[in-house]
Structures are given as C-alpha cells and as structure tokens.
C-alpha cells in the first residue's frame, strides 16, 4: 500500500519544483503548474491501474500461491475481477492523497476539471486495466523472467500520451502513433479544458472506443494465456 503514496509524492515534488523553476524563467506561463500537476495526478491513475493488476499476479507467483487460489472454488473471472477492484481502490486512494498533497504544496486543485474529471479518470482507469491484463497475460506465458515488464512497459506509452506537452510538438510519426493510444486524447482534452474551457467530446469518444477494444482484446489474451498455463501446469510457472 505504501507505493500508492510514495511514487505520487515523488512525482509531485519533482514536477512541482520543475514548474516553479520554469515559472521563474517564464512568469507569463500561469497554467503551467496546473498542467504539470494535473498531468502527474491523471497519469498516476493509469499507472496504478496497470501496476496493481500485474503486481497482483507477480505477488502470487513470488509466493508460489497461485495454485492455492485455483484449487479453491475461485474462478479465473473472480480473480481478474478482484485484481481490477483492488486497482480501482488503490488508484482512488492514491489520487485523493495526491490531490490533497498537490493542493497543499502548490495550491493546485484538480477538482477544477470537474465534472469532466470523472470521465478522464474512468478512461485512464480503463487504460490501466487493459495494460495490466496484457502484461499479466505475457507474464503468465513466460513466467517471472519477464517480470520487469510490469513496471516498465507502461512507460513506453507515456511519451505518446502527451502527458506534459501538447501532441503537436511530437514528430509526425510519433503523432500518428499516439492516435492508437487512448491516453493521448484524454491529456489533450484535459489541456483543452484548462486553456480553452471546453472539451471535444468526439475525442473522448474515440478514447472510450479504443479502451473498450483494447480491454476486450486484453481479456481474450489473458484468458488464452491462462489456458496455455493450464496445459503446462500452474505449478510450473515461476
């Protein structure tokens, strides 16, 4: 549970201090602090969603406990649902803590994005789930030798998500690639709301559709990975 507070605190300190320094160099960039802090808080939602799902699996593997779960009446769907449920709880706790800390340190209130904030959070949680399920599917297939994916793969998505900068500063190929990530639409629209006071709902719709497609695909992938594991034997994946 400590990690739900630790990483967001570190990120808030780093990005908050960086934005204070940039504001000294460019005093007219009044929204910069808000952009960085809201970026940290919102990205943390997707990150936590992914990490809590894949780490949930890894902890069972490290403890050699997976077999104890699946010799019980627990179903695979129950187990996946519980991982998602835990990720929701931890994401919300971490977000609440980060929001209070962000306000306390920098007087930045993420609630300014309300009511759209709820949509952003819901979409980012979905991104975290499909990333977490996809990574868990890979770990089920290849065991703990690919465990590093659990805390690294999500960061591959981050440059294309335009968390702290507008999408159009990326090179064209990266802009094209970013279109396949639901996160890029969310962060673009959070900045749109911040700077222009409006949201392009069709972009949020695209993000939602992409999330649903990836979520279905990741459910299918982890389910087929679990079937492969059952063919090898649960006791053999470590």
């Amino acid at each position: 549970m400590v990690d739900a507070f630790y990483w967001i605190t570190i990120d808030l300190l780093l990005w908050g201090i960086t934005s204070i320094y940039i504001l000294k160099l460019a005093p007219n960039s009044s929204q910069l602090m808000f952009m960085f802090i809201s970026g940290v808080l919102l990205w943390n939602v997707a990150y936590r969603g992914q990490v809590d799902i894949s780490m949930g699996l890894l902890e069972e593997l490290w403890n050699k406990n997976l077999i104890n779960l699946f010799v019980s009446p627990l179903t695979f769907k129950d187990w996946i649902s519980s991982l998602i449920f835990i990720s929701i709880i931890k994401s919300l706790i971490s977000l609440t803590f980060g929001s209070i800390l962000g306000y306390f340190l920098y007087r930045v209130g993420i609630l300014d994005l309300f009511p759209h904030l709820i949509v952003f959070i819901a979409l980012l949680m979905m991104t975290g789930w499909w990333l977490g399920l996809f990574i868990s599917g890979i770990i089920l297939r290849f065991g703990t030798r690919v465990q590093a994916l659990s805390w690294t793969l999500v960061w591959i998505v981050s440059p294309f998500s335009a968390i702290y900068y507008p999408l159009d500063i990326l090179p064209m190929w990266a802009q094209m690639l970013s279109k396949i990530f639901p996160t890029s639409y969310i962060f673009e629209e959070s900045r749109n709301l911040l700077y222009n006071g409006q949201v392009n709902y069709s972009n949020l719709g695209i993000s939602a559709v992409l999330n649903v497609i990836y979520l279905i695909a990741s459910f299918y992938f982890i389910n087929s990975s679990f079937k492969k594991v059952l063919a090898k034997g649960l006791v053999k994946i470590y």
Partner: protein
Amino acid sequence: MSVLRVSNITKKFKDFVAVDDISFELKEGEILGLLGPNGAGKTTTIQMLLGVLSSTSGDISYFGKKLVTNREEILEKVNFSSTYTNLPWSLTVRENLNYISYLYKIADRKKRIETLTTSFRLEKLVDLEMSALSAGQLTRVNLAKAFINFPRVLLLDEPTASLDPEVARFVRGFILSQREKYKVSIIFTSHNMSEVEEVCDRILFIKDGKIIVDDTPKNLSKSIKESKVHLIITSGDDALLFDYCVDNGMKIYSEKKQYTIDLAQSMIPSLLTFLGHNNINYSEISIDKPDLEDYFLKVASNRKSMEL
C-alpha cells in the same frame, strides 16, 4: 460408494507422455497411496485431479459430476496440501487461514480457524508472518489450510515432509481421525514407506506414467518373497553353511562372525534345521521380513526382475 472416478486420463507434454491412460476410483473414507519413483507421474496426476493442469484426454469425475464442467461446485468439497506450494509470506498464519476461508465460503470463519490452529498446535504461531516459520511449522499451516473447508476429498502430496517424527505421527493420527469422523477420502503421496503402510488402505504404484500395481500395502509386502536372516555364529563349520547356501540358491555375506543370508521366506525353516543338524551354533538371530520399502525399491529399480 465412489467419490472420485478417473477414466483413462493421459497427459502429454509435446512428445513426452507423463501420464499414460490411467484409470482408478477412490471410495468414500478410503485412503489411497500414490507411490512411484521421482518422475513417475504422481504430481502430474494430482495436478490434473485438482484441475490446475489440463489432461490431454480422459475424464475426471467427483461425486458423479465431471470436474471440467462443475469445477466450482466440486472444488468447494476438495482440498490440497503440498510441499511445493506456499501461502503468502508477508501475511500472518491467521490472515492466511482467514483469506483461504473466504475462498471456500466458510460460514463461521473465526471458530473454524481456532479449531484448526488448536488441532495443528499453531496457537502460538497464529500472529506470526509465514516468513518467520520453520519448514515444519509451514507444513502444519498448509495442512490446516487443507482441512479448512471440511473436505470430502483431500489430496496430500508428501504431507509430512519436513516434520519431526513426533509431529509427523501426530499428523498421521489427525488424518486417520478425520477419516473416521467425517469419512474424508484421501489421496496420499509420501516417500516414507512405513507411513504409507500405516495410513493407506490401498496403493497405486505408478511407473513411467502407468499404474503398474493396485493393491493393499499388506499384499504388496507379501509379494516380495525374499527375507534376510542375520546370524552371529559362535561355533561350528561355517564352510558347510556357505556350501548349503550356494547349493540352495541363497546369497550369503559375512563380516567376522556375523552372517547375512538372503533367502525365500519358505526356506527359513530348512535353514534352521540345517544349522541344528550340523552343530552350527549361533548366539543371535534376527529375521527381516519384506516391507513396502523393499517392494518400492524392487519395483522402482526393475519391475521385470520382480517375482510377483
């Protein structure tokens, strides 16, 4: 009444056949020993019986229902303990038993955990993390976990490994008492043959993925006809004894005045008569009758040479 029926299950890993078309039944209240050398297919069979390894072909049914289509309903009444699985290290014994009791939907969790921690002498350990326990203590926690749901069928893979003899005896007693009280049916693997003889009603001997013997421990021991006679000879011509043994197909070994003779049980009376008639006197004599361990060693090393 049969609580478990295994019909022609086979498990192949690519070209390797780990379990080869085996079939057996487990009756209510029966303790069935699954024996065989390492790599024989015992653990693979147990994993298939638990549904954590899919079989290549064949059917497994508990209580008249197929495992593959009635998994949740069946697994509520089945449990398992093994030395190759652990419970989460960072949780205490009580927390582990508590979360396991949620998985099995135990109604009065607190009472059940108290009963089991008392039964397995874990009262002083319940609030310790698993990482603080010794191997023997971990085995006892795993056994407590296996009994948490009042299982009707229990699969125990080397349940007394890592236990000291006194606790192992206590655990065997507990297993037998549970069978008496609740008619629990148990599949039991162990490398301790005297334990298997004490606990099991019937034994399946598996080798190279096939069941090669299905019989009671007593009958299996009887099937080994060779005994060992140990003698300390005090007077008489031992050359006569050597000649007698060689002529009658017995093996004889000597070290100073101590002699060991391998012979068929039926030959023991004639050996003793021979010693008396030839004035070969001995101060001590002991006879080792064959037991399950002899059977295991013989079958594991070479089945064909065994005289069944």
